[in-house]
Each structure stands twice: as structure tokens, then as C-alpha cells.
């Protein structure tokens, strides 16, 4: 992504070229953002169809829609990342043409990507300054940046530690740094694409408080999310997209979750069947006093013990960054275990992901972009990662692409990946469809254990139901399932047992039925409850 080395500049920037129409003036009351009849094609895919969108200044405007509906594409057009094939963008009533995101930033648009664009080894101040230093000498620029950030912090209630490398901050705070960075560049319009998918409920609350304050001070917020409760909680208005087109605008106060859901998919969403839990069988995954260290030798998981039995789903809740990721990676054989043992179906397992796969342990990694998929590859190439030695994909040394392709097509159809085209570049699938592709690869392969991190990250409502059904039916088929998710509702929905991790330790394990959200909240805060049984009976 390009960031132009410009200081925040006034709204009438030279790089935002007014496209001719002299009669339009920035009249008072003009919407902050207006898109008129925007069309965008990717080859044969009509990603945006004559989209009209108008967002009033000082409001939080939600955008919802199924996976692949065109939300991210539309925002990328607004942010100058793509160019619309047809249509017009008006900012504060003024037509603009963005050649790149530098132009958009100069027009006071800021974008907070789902995957943070931060330099992890830099502090908040350094990240905010990056590309907007304003002078060749860093000393004075740094002091100026610090002063300005302090002002922004005060004005919007956005507290973050200024001098800690952002990589060491929890996700929620990293996100605040992103917001600060955008504000530092003078953003009046903030676009957030699925900002809540990796946040814990408490962090989501914090984010929404910030968004409210920002809107109250006249900033305009565009919020994309798949969680309709969040739309109800945080937005003033909401636009619904379907197959590239905007099909409805509503005032949030005048609508309901079920109306939005119906507008999105064009039918009613049936509630998930909870399934009949089976009697758990023998233990398929045993974790025995496991300690895991990161590459710099710091212990991230301390002396953790638990087991997961056949026909049981155990969820791990907790604020991201409390050792869940390291634990999951160690269980998947991707990280060495410093002390302790991991047993799969009673046998000790070595730290090797190939060995896990052979033993019937499948793993859906938390971050599909970092390690789960290969973005520049075709979908069918991403769909065999880890299973590329499977004899069904060709004999001997050769990979039989027609076989790979037809196998992938089947998986894509089962998991409703759209378009179900194995030749599509992975990066060109929408976020939710990428997630479904990864699930399609892993879920069926779990003959004994399924390890899942953030299973429905970025997946739409219907997709979530489908995936949850799938996970439950695996459970009912007698697999052992370990689920890590920042989404507490998802954990409560799916799990039979809930464990909470804080500071690398398991604070407690409670049966999901009894797991009152308040108790879990306490556990997440690191309060160990003595009356919470430590092991499954």
C-alpha cells in the first residue's frame, strides 16, 4: 500500500482533482461521502453494480453483505486503491478522482485494514509519523508528532502506550494505533473493514466507544462487519449489499436484525440446530504440563494441562495475545514444546506438522493470510497446502493438476466458496471466501482431532451457520475439537467446555452450559476462580 509522504493537507488538495463540474459547490449539508453509480469489474466478475451510497458527516454508517458482495472492493475504490470503471466519488459535495491511496489520504480519508499495516518493531509515535515525517530531521518531527498525538489522545479518548513497540501491544491497542495513525494524517472519514473480527467482547466495546466519540466530534465513520448485533449497537445508518449492488438503506433505529439479515441473503436464516451432544469417548488429545516459549525464549504458555475427548468441543476463550496462538501452534506441531508432552490418541507426538497430519490432526490456522493460504497462488494450489503428498493428487513426483482441480472444485462447492473456480487467484477471493477455502481444505481431514483458530473470521451469517453445523457434525461423529476464538459468542455457541487463557495460563475450565458470560469475563481478566473445576470430570 502506498502512503504519500504528505503532511495532512487541507481538503482542497491539489492531488484530488475536481473533475470538472463547476456547478457543484461544497454546500453546507452535503454528505461527507457520496458514491454515484459506481461500477467495478474484475474480468468477468461484476464486483460493484451501480452503487449509490451517501454517508452524512458525523455519523457511523454500517455496510453489511454476504461474502463476496463487494464491500471491500467498494471501500478500496473510495480509498483510491482501485479505480472505478464507471461512476463518481464526491467528498463533501466535491467530485474527486483518486489515482492512488495517497490522493485519498490527502482528501482526509483514512482506512483501517483488518490486517494492520503497522511496523511491529516501531513504537506508536514512529508508526504514526511513518511517511508523514514532515521534515528530514527526525528529532523535531518526533517531538511534533508526540505533541499532536497527545492532543488526539485527549480529544478522542484513545489511550495507547506511546513508546512500546506496537508488536508487543494487544490487538485492541494495535488497532487504536491504526486509528491514531489515520487521525494523525488528518482523516475526517474513517473506513474500518471488519475491525472487530479479532477483538474480544471488551475490546469491541472499547472500539465502539471510540467510534462514538469520533462521530460526536464530526468525524465520519464507515464500518463493515458481519455481526449484525454490532450494526445495531454502533451505527446510525446501514446499507445492505448483495451481489455487488446496494439493495437497501435503513436508519438503524428503524430496522431490526432479522430485517437486515433477510435483505442480505434474500431469505430467512434458519437458526442453527444445536445437535444432540454425544457421550464423550476416550481422550484423543492430551496436553500434559506443556510450556511453550517464543523464538526469543520468553515463555508464552505456562505449564498447561487439559484433554479433549472424542465427541467433545473444547473452546479456549481469552483476550488475543495471552498464549492461545502459541498453544495452538504447539498442538499443531508448528512450535517446539519446551517442557511437557502432547499425546494424540494416547501416543506422544513430536513437533512436526507432517506427523500430526498423518495421525489425523487437522489444523485451521488463525491467520489465513500469514500462513494458511498462499495469496499469489491459484485457489487449487492453496487448497492442497500440507496435503500435497496425498496420492490422490498424482503418482510419484508429479502433481496431477486436473485431479487437484476437480478435487478443489468439489471442496469449494461443498463449502460454498464463491466463485467456485479452482483457477481463481487466492488473493482475488473475498476475505470470507478465502476463509471458507481454508476450512474446506482442513475440516474433512480431521479423522481424529480438529484444531481451529478463529474458524469464522470474516465469514458471513449464512456461512457461519454452515461452518458451525459442520463442526458440530464432526463432533457428533466422534472427533475431538479444540476451538480458539476471540469471539465469545461463537465459543459459547459451539463448545461443550470453555477454558479461559490469561497470561499464558489456563484460568479455568467450565461446562459451556454453566459458563455465564460474567464469570468468563472475570477469568479473562486473570482472576482465577477457585470454585471452577480445573479438569473435566
Amino acid at each position, binding site marked *: *500500500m502506498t502512503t504519500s509522504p504528505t503532511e495532512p493537507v487541507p481538503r482542497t488538495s491539489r492531488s484530488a482533482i475536481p473533475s470538472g463540474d463547476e456547478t457543484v459547490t461544497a454546500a453546507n449539508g452535503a454528505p461527507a461521502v457520496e458514491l454515484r453509480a459506481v461500477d467495478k*469489474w*474484475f*474480468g468477468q466478475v461484476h464486483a460493484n453494480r451501480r452503487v449509490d451510497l451517501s454517508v452524512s458527516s458525523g455519523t457511523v454508517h454500517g455496510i453489511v453483505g454476504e461474502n463476496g458482495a463487494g464491500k*471491500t472492493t467498494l471501500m*478500496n475504490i473510495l480509498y483510491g*486503491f*482501485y*479505480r472505478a*470503471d464507471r461512476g463518481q466519488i464526491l467528498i463533501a459535495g466535491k467530485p474527486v478522482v483518486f*489515482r492512488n491511496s495517497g490522493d485519498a489520504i490527502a482528501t482526509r480519508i483514512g482506512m483501517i*485494514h483488518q*490486517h494492520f*499495516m503497522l511496523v511491529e518493531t516501531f513504537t506508536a509515535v514512529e508508526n504514526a509519523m511513518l511517511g508523514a515525517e514532515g521534515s528530514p530531521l527526525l528529532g523535531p518531527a518526533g517531538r511534533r508528532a508526540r505533541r499532536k498525538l497527545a492532543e488526539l489522545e485527549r480529544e478522542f479518548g484513545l489511550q495507547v502506550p506511546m513508546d512500546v513497540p506496537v508488536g508487543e501491544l494487544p490487538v485492541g491497542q494495535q488497532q487504536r494505533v491504526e486509528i491514531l495513525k489515520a487521525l494523525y494524517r488528518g482523516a475526517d472519514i474513517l473506513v474500518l473493514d471488519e475491525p472487530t473480527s479479532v477483538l474480544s467482547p471488551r475490546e469491541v466495546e472499547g472500539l465502539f466507544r471510540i467510534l462514538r466519540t469520533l462521530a460526536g466530534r464530526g468525524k465520519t465513520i464507515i464500518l463493515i462487519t458481519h455481526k449484525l448485533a454490532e450494526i445495531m449497537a454502533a451505527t446510525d445508518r446501514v446499507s445492505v449489499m448483495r451481489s455487488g449492488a446496494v439493495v437497501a438503506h435503513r436508519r438503524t433505529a428503524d430496522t431490526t436484525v432479522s430485517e437486515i439479515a433477510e435483505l442480505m441473503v434474500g431469505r430467512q436464516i434458519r437458526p442453527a440446530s444445536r445437535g444432540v451432544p454425544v457421550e464423550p469417548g476416550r481422550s484423543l488429545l492430551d496436553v500434559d504440563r506443556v510450556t511453550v516459549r517464543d523464538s526469543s525464549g520468553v515463555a508464552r504458555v505456562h505449564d498447561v494441562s487439559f484433554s479433549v475427548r472424542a465427541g467433545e468441543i473444547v473452546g479456549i476463550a481469552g483476550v488475543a495475545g495471552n498464549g492461545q496462538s502459541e498453544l495452538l501452534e504447539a498442538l499443531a506441531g*508448528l512450535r517446539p514444546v519446551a517442557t511437557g508432552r502432547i499425546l494424540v490418541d494416547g501416543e506422544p507426538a513430536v513437533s*512436526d*506438522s*507432517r506427523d500430526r*497430519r498423518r495421525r489425523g490432526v487437522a*489444523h485451521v*490456522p488463525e491467520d489465513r*493470510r*500469514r*500462513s*494458511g*493460504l*498462499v*495469496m*499469489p*497462488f491459484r485457489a487449487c*494450489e492453496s487448497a*492442497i*497446502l*500440507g496435503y*500435497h*503428498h496425498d496420492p490422490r493428487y*498424482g503418482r510419484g*513426483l*508429479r*502433481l496431477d*493438476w486436473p485431479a487437484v482441480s476437480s478435487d478443489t472444485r468439489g471442496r469449494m462447492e461443498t463449502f460454498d466458496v464463491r466463485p467456485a473456480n479452482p483457477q481463481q*487467484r487466492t*488473493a*482475488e477471493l473475498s476475505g470470507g471466501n478465502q476463509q471458507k477455502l481454508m476450512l474446506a481444505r482442513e475440516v474433512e481431514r480431521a479423522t481424529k482431532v480438529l484444531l481451529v483458530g478463529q474458524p469464522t473470521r470474516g465469514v458471513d451469517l449464512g456461512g457461519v451457520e454452515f461452518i458451525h453445523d459442520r463442526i458440530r457434525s464432526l463432533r457428533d461423529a466422534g472427533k475431538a475439537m479444540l476451538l480458539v476464538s476471540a469471539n465469545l459468542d461463537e465459543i459459547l455457541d459451539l463448545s461443550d467446555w470453555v477454558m479461559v487463557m490469561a497470561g499464558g495460563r489456563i484460568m479455568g475450565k467450565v461446562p459451556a452450559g454453566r459458563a455465564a458470560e460474567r464469570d468468563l469475563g472475570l477469568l479473562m481478566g486473570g482472576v482465577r476462580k477457585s470454585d471452577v473445576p480445573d479438569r473435566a470430570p
Partner: protein
Amino acid sequence: MSVTAPDPVSGLPRWSVLGLLPGLNLLAAFAACGLIVLLAGEHPWQAVQVLVGGAFGSAEAVGYTLFYATSFIFTGLAVAVAFQCGLFNIGGEGQALIGGLGVALVCLHLDFLPFLLLLPVAIAAAALFGAAWAFVPAVLQARRGSHIVITTIMFNFIATSIMVYLLVNVMSPAGSMQPETRAFAEHARLPYVHEVAGALGWELPSSPLNVSLILALLCCAGVWLFVWHTRAGYRTRVVGANPAAAVFGGISPGAQVVVAMTLSGALAGCMSLNELMGVQHRLVLEFTGGFGFVGIAVALMGRGHPAGIVPAAVLFGALYQGGAELAFEIPAITRDMVVVIQGLVILFAGALEYMFVPALRPFLVRRAVD
């Protein structure tokens, strides 16, 4: 850096990406070259005529062009294979030199073998020696994280020094002052294409083009098969595209680095067959002539794909052959200016390959929509 960075050519029709853009880039390069020729006080059009005529004007010229292209195919493939694994192999020069040492050892000491046995042994030696020279930096990268760019550059220097030592002190015949070995036996030489053609009753003028061109084309097919149609090639590409995903998939990046680099070194080593067994018929100093570096440009222009590397290699062969002609025919255009012209082609066709995309996109995309 950005995870959502769009492919610069996404959405453009295929024909424009594969045909129109490279063509335009080449035209731009020639326009810039024309300016240089003008500055030198010569007629650009005349220079073009000399250059093209020198490269393609006669069967002999074509032979020379393809002779150079043969070496460039080998070194271009070498760079491309390493690049698929995310590695920048700058060491083609050194690997070709050491490969040449292998060829010379076979041709000098095993020449009691008949040609048909000697040939595969010589090919194996070229590949093995070249691979060995790439193996060491590969292991250093895989085990110790020593950057392959640095180590392969160093290994170029080491290879040159070794060759000087060997040719001056060990391998030159007694009493000779030349840093070169004795000539290979008659049957330890590769047949020229004009000889083969002559035997088949087709008269061609003599040129250094020899049968190693066939081996180069076979290598193209081999690389294509390996990279896109084998499991090892798949693993290599995963490591090149996303090492974290490789680890997730149970693929060891270190092991793939070693595989890709040794293969790359083997291909670079094979370039010495063309030069030594094909033309020089002895081991001489510096027979690689910088072709290992040209391979980088060839791989870049050919987008790392054999189907692109062959035409790119022919283009550079033509620039070499036509350029030599140019420097010879038009004295105002010196050898150095020919290098400048070659550099401009690399700049426009390789480094600035997407320069015209923003300007062309509106035309191409609107046409695709309607």
C-alpha cells in the same frame, strides 16, 4: 508490503499483458537508445539497421545470435529457478566457471571414452560442479541465514581465483605461458550446427552455434515440468511465495532452498558446455564473460517462465551480436555505448515493466466491459 496489493495487471486482457506491454516496453527502450545514438551524432535509423542486420541479417548472423542465446537460456533458467524459491542467485558466473572446470576435467582426462559416452559424462560434470558451487551458499543460507546474495557474490570471486590458480599453476601444459589447458581431443567437442546440417545435406555458413542449444531447450522443458508439475516444484514455489505458509504445510524452507539452489547451479554450470565443449575446445580464463549476470535480466524479462526466457534470451543474443556489429560498423558508437543500450533494454523491459499500465488501463478495461 500490503497484503491486499492488487496485481498491477489484474483485470487486463491476457493478450495485452503478454504481447502488447512487452512490445511497448521494447519500443520505449529503442526510442531511448535512439536518443543516445543521436547524441553520439549518428543516425538512429541507420544504427537500428546495422543492429538488426548484424543480428538477423544472414544465416551466419542468426547462428551467432542463437549461440549467445544458448548461454543466456542456461543462465536465465538458473536465475528463474532460484527466484521461484524467493532466492536471488547472483552466482551464475562462479557456478558456470566451476561447471566449466568439471567439463574440462572430463574432456581432458576421460577422452579415452567415445563421444557418445563422453557427452553425458561431461553434461553430468558441468551440472554437478555447478550445483556443488551453489550448494555451499545454499546450506549457509538454510542453516546459518547467511544471505544468498552476499555469499554467491563472494563465491564468484572465489571461483575466479581458483580458476586463475589452476590454469596458471596446475592445468596449463608444461612450457606454456598461456593460462589455458591443452585443446580437447577432436571427439571431445560438441558438433557445430552447420556441421550437423552439412552432414544432412543442408549447407549453412559456419557459426559457433552448436548442439548445446538442444540441451538448453530440453532444460527449458525440464524446468517447466519441475516448477509447475512436480511436488518438489510446488514446495519450492510455496517457500518462495510465503515461507510461513510453507512451515504450516510441513515444508522445510531450508531444504527447499538447497534443492532450488543446487538446481540453479547445475543449470548455470551447463552454460560452460556451450562455451568450452562448443567453441573454445579448451578451458580458458573468464570464458563466462558476464553471461551469468545477463541471466538475471533474461529471467526478469522472461517473467521467470521458460516460454518467456527463450525469446528474452534471443533478444539479448541479438543485442550482443548486433551490438558487436554496431560498434564495429559505426566507430562513433563505442563498445561502452552498446552496453548502455543493453542496459536501457533491461531498464525498460525488466525494471519498468508496468510503466505503461496506468496509461493503457482505461482503454483495455473499457473494451473488456463492453
